[in-house]
């Protein structure tokens, strides 16, 4: 993936290098060649429409090529593959808290196996941060109140810098860490040591503790919708809209339940704003995902992030499904 970025970069270096050389050579040559000499007046040349058109159209086409190439690379970078391993990231002043779906928690460090697609589901507890791994040519702002998604696919074992790239206060330059890419076997070994169980299991516990199960029963008798099989599928709302049940939708439903009420249900769910932490939210979302037993990436979620959640209040409006 990084290779794609570098390829475009080199192309740009060549194109702009040529352009620079052209301009510099012309300027220096003309400045020297046409240095003022007695008795040799300047020749008044008004212009040349041909030339103007040429040097407007050609750069424009070159720019369009660059645009298209850049767009393709970008599109790939914003489309996590299905079945990516998921890691939840919570940024706060001034540290990175990471939690694997399997439950391991890390601070300022992320261990990943090489050769696997890793999708990051990120939010901030306070101000805007940005998750930047130069080696992967990857960067994504991390916002409070919603999730943003990024993904990468590491191909070489090693330790790579992680930086916060959006100014966030006093220790902005201290908000650095490492991405540790390991051989698959080593990663398994690392994983089996010290885990509190999968994230979705903690989510299940919280689900019970907070009384969610009272209304969200696994039958049709509950006052809230049955959540089995919901994640990643379209949901019809009471006002007629159909949205995709992605991470932002689940988050919003917990923090601002009146925003998108499911069709056929009454808006009686209380809000849990202030009663759940970001980490607990992540666990709950992991649990709801697990109820769709298609795994972390249901058939529709792969397309959800690139439609990128429209900016919303505490969550988003989900993504419109055509």
């Amino acid at each position, binding site marked *: 993936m990084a290779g794609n*970025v570098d390829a475009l970069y080199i192309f740009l270096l060549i194109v702009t290098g040529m352009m620079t050389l052209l301009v510099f050579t012309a*300027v220096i040559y003309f400045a020297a060649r046409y240095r*003022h000499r007695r008795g040799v007046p300047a020749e008044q040349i008004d212009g040349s429409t041909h030339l103007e058109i040429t*040097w407007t159209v050609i750069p424009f086409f070159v720019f369009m090529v660059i645009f298209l190439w850049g767009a393709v690379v970008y599109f790939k970078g914003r489309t996590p593959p299905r079945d990516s391993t998921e890691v939840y990231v919570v940024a706060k002043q001034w540290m990175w808290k990471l939690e694997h779906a399997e439950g391991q928690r890390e601070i300022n460090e992320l261990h990943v196996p090489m050769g696997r697609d890793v999708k990051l589901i990120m939010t901030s507890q306070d101000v805007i941060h940005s998750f930047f791994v130069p080696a992967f040519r990857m960067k994504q702002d991390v916002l409070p109140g919603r999730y943003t998604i990024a993904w990468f696919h590491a191909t070489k074992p090693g330790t790579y810098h992680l930086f916060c790239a*959006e100014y966030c206060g006093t220790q902005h330059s201290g908000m650095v860490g490492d991405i540790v890419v390991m051989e698959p076997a080593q990663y398994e070994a690392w994983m089996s040591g010290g885990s509190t169980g999968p994230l979705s299991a903690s989510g299940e516990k919280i689900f019970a503790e907070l009384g969610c199960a009272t209304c969200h029963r696994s039958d049709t008798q509950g006052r809230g919708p049955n959540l089995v099989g919901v994640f990643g599928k379209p949901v019809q709302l009471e006002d007629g809209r159909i949205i995709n049940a992605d991470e932002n939708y689940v988050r919003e439903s917990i923090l601002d339940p009146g925003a998108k009420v499911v069709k056929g249900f009454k808006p009686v769910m209380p809000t849990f704003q202030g009663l759940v932490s970001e980490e607990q939210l992540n666990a709950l979302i992991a649990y709801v995902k697990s109820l769709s037993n298609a795994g972390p990436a249901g058939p529709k979620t792969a397309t959800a992030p690139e439609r990128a959640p429209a900016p919303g209040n505490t969550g988003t409006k989900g993504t419109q499904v055509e």
Partner: protein
Amino acid sequence: MSTAIAQPVERENYLNTQYGVGSWLLTTDHKRIALLYLASITFFFFIGGFFALLIRLELLTPAGDLVQADTYNKLFTMHGQVMVFFFLIPSIPAVLGNFLVPMMIGAKDLAFPRINLLSWYLYIIAGILMLHCILTGGVDTGWTFYTPFSTEYSNTKVIEAGLAIFISGFSSILTGLNFIVTIHRMRAPGMTWTRLPLFIWAHYATSIIQILGTPVIAITLVLVVAERALHLGIFDPKLGGDPLLFQHLFWFYSHPAVYIMILPSMGVVSEVIACFSRKRIFGYSFVALSSIAIAVFGFLVWAHHMFVAGISVYAALIFSLLSYSVAVPSAVKVFNWTATLYKGSIHYEAPMLYAFGFLGLFTIGGLTGLFLAALGIDVHVTDTYFVVAHFHYIMVGGALMGYLGGMHFWWPKITGKLYPEGWARLAALIVFVGFNLTFFPQFILGYLGMPRRYFDYSHMPEFQVLNVLSTAGATILGIGYLLPMIYFLWSMRYGKPAPDNPWNAAGLEWQTQSPPKTFNFDEEPVVTWEAYNYDEIDKAHPEEVHVVG
């Protein structure tokens, strides 16, 4: 017309017609107001420059050991705010524009001289407020003051800084308003739109941006101040607000703002290249129209500052596409200026050296914009030193070089004195070398991954070499800026008296005295010639055209 002999008795001009502080502080003469601005913006330039020096000193070593983290954060914030709002945005329009726009079109003054003075007072009030803010603790939000950091988390003087910038915005708006009305309504008989100097076209385009864009940042600042003071939730997600709304509103102005900073400089370059090549600018109408195109397109690209901010992929695609469109007119201008050199009769006085510098550095800066507009690359280099290098190439390598070139070009007209040419050429060279040494390494630093706004890079000590190079360059650059300060001041007292038109330049401003009388022209000029009629001028004055000070 050009004479190198001093006048035995000083003629009456706008400088000596009245003495006393009152005659300056209550003046409505656009030329005096220009000098008032010159003094004020130079003052702020050195403040902003001092902050830059401290930043670069800190970055000599990976550890954050010169100042504390909070102090460093305030330094880069205030460097940005002071340089953008109190130096770059006013610079050429308020100094050279104020001085020259009426003269270039054959008018006695701007359309609204009292509003012009009000403009300066607003700038001063804003400046005093900003100074007070700096001296009593400063602000650390970054010049971009993103929410919710600026509204909720920063415990520095955000409101005061916001108000200072708000007031300075009105100074900018009034200047733009004045220029547009002046250019529309006060042109001398015969001065048609197609006979206008390109400097005027550039300022017209700049003024359009000033009047349409600045009010948006004004209202954004009102919202930020209100939110911070009253704990509203317009930009705070916990209260239902959206931090991205702030970014959209902010960049809607701040992107066109960069065109406010560069267009006037391009106007200067057109005048200088035409004069020192002794010919009309190649493709006059294309250059004029490109200025307008840049102003218009400049309003359509703001979210290219937000590609990784969380906007949708589709929005990103649109803004990337539009960003390439705005690159085209800039490229067209560079080609036209270069073509002007062809078969010219080129002189190497200091103004022309600055123009050459502009051509080279603006080209590099502009081309690196292509990198940033490419979505795939931007993801990697945004918020790194690559961006810092890009915008400094344009704003310092471009805008500031244009400003210095213009100051040298019109110095004889403004002061009636000649600056020392030898020192000026040396200073231009020092600035060029120092500049490249400061900022070129930053492109590399950025691609290698050094984020911006970092005061401590001890986790990446491998970045030190490039940082040291950059700081060395900054020192050289600083010397390059101090030199003109010194010799300009020296020339006001000891410089050789300047002829009325030392460069035998085209343009109505050169038909006046050096320094000009208060009302510029004895009689309203009637224009019957095209702009840049250097063939006629040189036929009438076949002798050497340049005057060495």
